[in-house]
């Protein structure tokens, strides 16, 4: 029963080999989706290319539904899968800063790495900026650790605070995602621009 690496005595070299192979799959999927292109990614925020929302929500739902089926059939112990801890202020302030970085740089860290790997020079510069950002955070940590650690809520799940079962919440999320895909298709027609694929 998964997670496989939680088996006692699981060797470190195998865990790190898995990490590498997962990364290969991740980088391959990002590049194939077109996320190695900043102009495609930025299109999300001007309506002319909504690939981001389609890929993002499809992926989240596949993993969410898949993990619940695996749990149901006794293949995966979800209580041993990491659930992100919720620090209210840090999540919101951090997210807003990330959004600003997204529209300036045209990448997020993962998509930037996939773009860097196929030779995008702007992504290499974004990567150097990213290292600088991580360095600035480390050096400024004593001054912002109060904000970073404030209003800690633990690894709370959204369906629990809404009083819904996992299955019902997942169903609602799927309906919302389909509605968003429908709006996205309309937006792409309304804000259509000449195809730039050949320039990317």
């Amino acid at each position, binding site marked *: 029963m998964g997670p496989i690496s939680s088996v006692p005595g699981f060797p470190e070299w195998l865990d790190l080999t898995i990490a590498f192979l997962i990364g290969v799959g991740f980088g*391959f999927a990002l590049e194939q989706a077109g996320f190695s292109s900043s102009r495609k990614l930025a299109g999300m925020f001007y309506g002319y290319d909504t690939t981001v929302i389609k890929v993002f929500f499809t992926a989240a739902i596949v*993993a969410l539904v898949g993990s619940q089926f695996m749990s149901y059939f006794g293949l995966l112990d979800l209580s041993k899968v990491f659930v992100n801890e919720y*620090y209210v202020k840090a999540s919101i302030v951090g997210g807003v800063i990330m959004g600003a970085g*997204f529209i300036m740089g045209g990448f997020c860290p993962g998509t930037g790495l996939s773009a860097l*790997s196929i030779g995008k020079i702007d992504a290499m510069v974004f990567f150097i900026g*990213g290292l600088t950002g991580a360095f600035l955070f480390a050096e400024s940590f004593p001054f912002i650790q109060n904000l970073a650690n404030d209003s800690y809520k633990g690894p709370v799940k959204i369906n629990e605070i809404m009083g819904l079962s996992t299955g019902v919440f997942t169903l609602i999320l799927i309906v919302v995602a389909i509605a968003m895909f429908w709006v996205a298709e309309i937006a792409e027609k309304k804000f259509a621009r000449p195809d730039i694929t050949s320039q990317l």
Partner: protein
Amino acid sequence: MKRNYMNPYIAGTLLGLVLLLAMYLSGRGLGASGGLKYCVVSIVGAVNSDHALTSEYYSKYFEGGQNPLKNWLPIEVLGILAGGFISGAFSRRLKLKIEKSPNISNAKRLIFAFLGGVFFVYGAQLARGCTSGAALSGMAVLSVAGFVTMIAIFGSAFIFAWFFRKNWI
């Protein structure tokens, strides 16, 4: 001849299966910004080990003489580079170039790319994850942090998009 990008719903399914595999094999989601953090910790440790070992922030990554790069996330980031390269080679998209709107100069594109990287990864350290580690992986395990971070990232980018529209359209 370059190949077209994959259909977004198929690419999303592929990405979701990779995330599911990470949950099944390693009990965790995908990540990117965390890998950059380990790189920085390692560089600081090499350049100024006194600072790294006395700082409350860095020292926890060197406890017991461990190497910060020998962790799940930095190794996964190496994999992302390999996977992106394989995909680029497969679809004939390997090319050194600066991608930008024809309306802006190369210098402007690179300055904003740098600033974007600084902002994004700074914010990701604060929120304990970026689009992959917090938003995508967080949503897949129904964590409130994942949903809040996702809404904050996309909401903020939509608002700031107006100010930077000349960079893109």
